[in-house]
């Protein structure tokens, strides 16, 4: 008896991931790229404005200050941090580090990556935060 592949494996319903907390978190992580794409498009618009001239640049900053844009970018900030929290724990699993014959504890690798986030923020503060 021959069965086609669709008969062997019934297609999943679209809401399969709503049935378990683990799958909901998985989908939430996938969705972190939606506000990321929004921020990236904002940034591209800013680059075009900067190329056009000083007035366009001021106009872009005003656009970035409108409540809905600000809110979506706050969401993008939260999404980047949530993504970071899920991404950093993968590193020690994908590439365990060994130093002098001792494997580095997972917690140290995760903490090192958060230190990287702080270092980049400090770099931006050094570049933009001072008068």
């Amino acid at each position, binding site marked *: 008896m021959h069965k086609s592949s669709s008969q062997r494996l019934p297609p999943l319903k679209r809401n399969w991931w709503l049935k378990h907390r683990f799958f909901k978190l998985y989908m939430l992580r996938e969705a972190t790229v939606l506000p*990321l794409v929004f921020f990236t498009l904002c*940034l591209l618009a800013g680059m075009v404005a900067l190329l056009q001239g000083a007035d366009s*640049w001021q106009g872009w900053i005003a656009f*970035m200050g409108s409540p809905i844009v*600000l809110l979506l*970018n706050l969401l993008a900030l939260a999404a*980047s*941090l949530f993504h970071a929290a899920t991404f950093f724990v993968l590193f020690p699993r994908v590439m365990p580090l060994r130093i002098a014959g001792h494997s580095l504890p997972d917690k140290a690798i995760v903490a090192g990556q958060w230190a990287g986030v702080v270092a*980049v923020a400090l770099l931006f503060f050094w570049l933009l935060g001072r*008068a």
Partner: protein
Amino acid sequence: MMEKLAINEHGPQHKQAFDEPLWWSLFSAGGVCFAVILPAVILFIAICLPLGLLPAGALSYERASNLLFSVPGFLFVGAVVCLPLFHAAHRLRHGLFDISVGNDILNKKLMYGAAALLSVLALGLVVAGMLR
């Protein structure tokens, strides 16, 4: 056993996915940038700047132009725009597959194609700014 053989003969042909390591590498590199660099970029450029929390002149037209239209600016755009775009394209493609929207062959072309197009546009803007 016979059934298994029959499935192998009539089942869908699986082509060797020679390009998947490339997409996965870009996804991975973009994921690192999204996690490590983007929080600071979003905080300073999309929140502090429009709220007026940066010191006067920190990102004035002249300063922003000098920072962006330069070799470090080119690398910045690669890490903050291009790689995260490929990360997003990969997640969107697999997300669409997960909720059975469209078909993967088309989604793949649309997502990675859009990421490549916007990346070229972003890097092209920096080069245009450097040349003017």
